[in-house]
């Protein structure tokens, strides 16, 4: 992707991830409203189901990308000194990467061990 089209790429990604997140949130809401897991066995069993683990991993990946683009745009709008902006962007990126590693560990190791 060329430098000129980077903004278009972000715009596109923000919409694709947003649409997926919205669908998954509707699905989650439906599960918790109409078939809420009642105890640990039901809860961990639901999360461990391959369909839920895979779509859940995709959900968190979409959330991290969506959050990165959104928070990045906000920081670029309001934080102007270059050093401060770079520091803030780096901090946000590290937090999001950390969240990604953490939730991957939970969904893949804790549940499937």
């Amino acid at each position, binding site marked *: 992707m060329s430098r000129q089209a980077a903004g278009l790429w972000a715009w596109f990604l923000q919409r694709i991830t947003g649409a997926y997140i*919205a669908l998954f949130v509707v699905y989650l809401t439906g599960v918790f409203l109409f078939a809420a897991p009642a105890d*640990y066995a039901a809860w961990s069993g639901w999360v461990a189901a391959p369909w839920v683990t895979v779509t859940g991993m995709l959900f968190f990946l979409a959330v991290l990308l969506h959050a990165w683009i959104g928070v990045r745009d906000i920081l670029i709008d309001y934080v102007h000194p270059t050093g401060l902006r770079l520091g803030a962007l780096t901090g946000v990126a590290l937090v999001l990467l950390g969240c990604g590693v953490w939730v991957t560990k939970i969904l893949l190791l804790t549940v499937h061990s």
Partner: protein
Amino acid sequence: MQSKTQRPVFLDLRILTPRLPLVAIMSIMNRATGVLMFVSAPVLIYLLGVSLDGPAGYDRALVLLDGILTKLWLFALIWAVAHHMFAGIRFLLFDIDVGAELEQARKSALWVVVGGAVVAALALIGVML
């Protein structure tokens, strides 16, 4: 002095529009709710991890979720998700040229704000019932 009178005159017409129109409020709320969800993500992941850490962890997560502060936070989070989702649907519709005219955009901004608040109110009623 002649040149001075021929300069373009700046008429401050901003006075004719509201200082913070509803569309702007909706847009700022979209950013604020986004930031709230970003900040909340690590807490949610922490709760997810605890709840999946054996039956004891599951019980501990339920206790953590039962606090009044946690409930207030969850209420704000549900409001945030709903508002952000409605705002997102509005943006997606703009992209396919639906409702991009100013008057429609103003109306849909109102629907986003009202829709988010309605979902939050429904969640509150659901918890209390």
